[in-house]
């Protein structure tokens, strides 16, 4: 219903020839939908004398007050598109039958043109809205894809694959891998209800919270509890997040997991497929939730498959869902090794049809414990193969760097580092761990400093991580000994300088609250 109905008073000569003093503009009066006047105008179809109208209508009163004498409805396809309001004739004569015919004829030509204009306006508005939605989807996709892992974890004895394909109206799927040190890998898969930018923002928030909580707890249940408490006050109403979080001890093959309402993972074992069941409410629904925690030990050859509901809830042309049973059946089939992702995606496409628009995001994470023979085969070359020599933690108590030095020295003992190079490495490790205790963890004895010792044929890499990820490490400067001896500067400030001088390379990185210093010492070199 058009609300703007406006007409100038009719003039009997061309407007340019009419003196301004004899023209009068009638302000537009809207006719509300359902007003009795609307019914009258639609049923009459032609000019209507206001004086003849006896209706209980607010619009009529306004129209009368505005000085309207004649209303000419503009009707198209049974819809009142507008109306011409005419005041009294300048000649003060009543409107003649000819006048009415002329106005009726004019209205019948104007109405279709107005209808076309109305449709054009609507289409323009729809196009603009489509463009806005498209842009929003692109932003959502960008947020989501920026935050998904760029690289898959590379762990001897394990093969990790991941697949993510967003729906056009991007959903809130996400997955993540978190290196927890000491050979432990955190695996996350989650799904935010809702789509688009709101879902992407909640996904980003949830991911950050998980990354912040993960290094602080060795229990997946505790991680989910912490994230739930943090996200409940932040999440928009009617949104929540399903999430499964597992910690894999890559040495022992032990998987500890907790589930906040996400699809159950499957594990294909030598005996068949099992579900990893643990109960818990989705994140963000209500505070003070607790989460079951379960343990499963993966043997060589076992394959764990984590998925999002974009797979199980995909429909075929007959509107039947793919479902858990079909997915479980697909996981059970043994195909080409390492091809689980393609097998599931292929089976899903057979079900839905390739040309059909995907209904929801599809995410698959596959974690396979490989046999040692496969590890050897998959290694790029003997030189590039990295061996984990030690992985341990020391609590943040002053002096514990000495324990770390002893453990590292023991771990690299068989590598044949020259005596002086070994001593340099020990000093660098001591200084790095000391910094982690004092500056990273601020001497908080409840926080660990994690140390990982790895070696290739060419080099030893020591990764020291603490919880001071948001702290800025100053650039290394050569201490001014003269100034220190003259009492102009503190005698301290040697740590970073020494570390840099002792090893061949120092790399520093921050990962969501975790601060990591990596020391690289070539196995062959001077001294």
């Amino acid at each position, binding site marked *: 219903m058009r609300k703007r109905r406006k007409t100038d008073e009719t003039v009997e000569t061309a407007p340019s020839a009419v003196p301004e003093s004899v023209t009068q503009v009638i302000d537009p009066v809207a006719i509300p939908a359902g007003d009795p006047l609307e019914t009258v105008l639609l049923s009459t179809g032609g000019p209507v004398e206001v004086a003849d109208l006896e209706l209980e209508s607010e619009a009529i009163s306004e129209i009368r007050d505005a000085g309207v004498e004649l209303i000419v409805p503009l009707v198209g396809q049974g819809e009142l598109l507008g109306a011409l309001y005419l005041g009294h004739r300048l000649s003060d004569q009543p409107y003649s039958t000819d006048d009415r015919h002329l106005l009726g004829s004019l209205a019948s030509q104007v109405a279709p043109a107005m209808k076309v204009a109305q449709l054009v306006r609507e289409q323009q508005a729809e196009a603009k809205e489509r463009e806005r939605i498209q842009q929003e989807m692109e932003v959502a996709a960008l947020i989501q894809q920026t935050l998904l892992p760029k690289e898959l974890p590379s762990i001897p004895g394990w093969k990790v694959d991941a697949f993510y394909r967003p729906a056009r109206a991007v959903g809130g799927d996400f997955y993540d891998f978190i290196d927890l040190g000491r050979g432990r890998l955190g695996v996350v898969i989650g799904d935010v209800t809702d789509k688009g930018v709101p879902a992407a923002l909640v996904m980003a928030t949830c991911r950050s919270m998980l990354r912040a909580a993960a290094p602080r707890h060795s229990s997946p249940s505790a991680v989910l509890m912490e994230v739930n408490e943090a996200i409940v006050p932040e999440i928009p109403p009617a949104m929540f997040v399903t999430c499964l979080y597992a910690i894999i001890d890559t040495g022992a093959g032990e998987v500890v997991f907790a589930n906040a309402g996400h699809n159950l993972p499957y594990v294909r074992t030598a005996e068949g497929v099992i579900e990893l069941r643990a109960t818990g409410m989705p994140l963000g629904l209500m505070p003070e939730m607790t989460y079951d925690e379960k343990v499963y030990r993966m043997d060589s050859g076992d394959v764990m498959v984590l998925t999002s509901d974009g797979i199980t809830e995909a429909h075929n042309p007959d509107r039947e869902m793919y479902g858990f049973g079909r997915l479980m059946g697909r996981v059970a089939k043994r195909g080409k090794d390492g091809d689980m992702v393609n097998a599931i995606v292929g089976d899903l496409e057979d079900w839905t049809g390739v040309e059909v628009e995907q209904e929801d995001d599809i995410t698959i994470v596959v974690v396979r414990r490989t046999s040692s023979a496969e590890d050897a085969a998959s290694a790029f070359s003997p030189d590039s193969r990295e061996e984990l020599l030690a992985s341990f933690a020391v609590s943040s108590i002053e*002096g514990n*760097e*000495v*324990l770390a*030095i*002893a453990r590292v*020295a023991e771990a690299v003992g068989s590598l044949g580092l020259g*005596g*002086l190079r070994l*001593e*340099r490495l*020990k*000093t660098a490790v*001591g*200084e790095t761990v*000391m910094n982690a205790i004092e500056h990273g963890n601020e001497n908080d004895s409840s926080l660990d400093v994690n140390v990982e010792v790895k070696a290739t044929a060419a080099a030893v890499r020591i990764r020291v991580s603490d919880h001071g990820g948001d702290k800025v490490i100053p650039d290394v400067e050569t*201490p001014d*000994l003269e100034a*220190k*001896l*003259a*009492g102009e500067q*503190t*005698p*301290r*400030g*040697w*740590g970073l*300088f*020494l570390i840099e*001088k002792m090893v061949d390379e120092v790399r520093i990185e921050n990962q969501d609250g975790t601060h990591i210093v990596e020391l690289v010492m070539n196995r062959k070199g001077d001294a």
Partner: protein
Amino acid sequence: MSGQGFEVVVNQTKKGSIIKLSGTVNRAAKGKLEAAYELASTTDGQILLDFRQVEYINSTGIAVIVGVLAKARAADRDIGAFGLTEHYREVFEITRLSDFMHIYEDAKAGN
């Protein structure tokens, strides 16, 4: 490396004093080493730091040594060191401590 604490003994000789350090030289060594220096500086001659029994020196220990060296320089006292392992000799060179204190191969060279 045992992570043992720090001990210090001062031997005063006709030629000067020897401060014998043992264990771990870190920030915890500050009080004992400074007290030892004060005692050593009561006799004339060179003050020698004996590192033969030192197992571990970290950056906070370097700072303690810098502090003692600063006191000695302010008092115009000569300080030397001996008994450093090859690694810690290198550390003293990198930190340039060896530019300000003579590093001897052993005690005889110093005294």
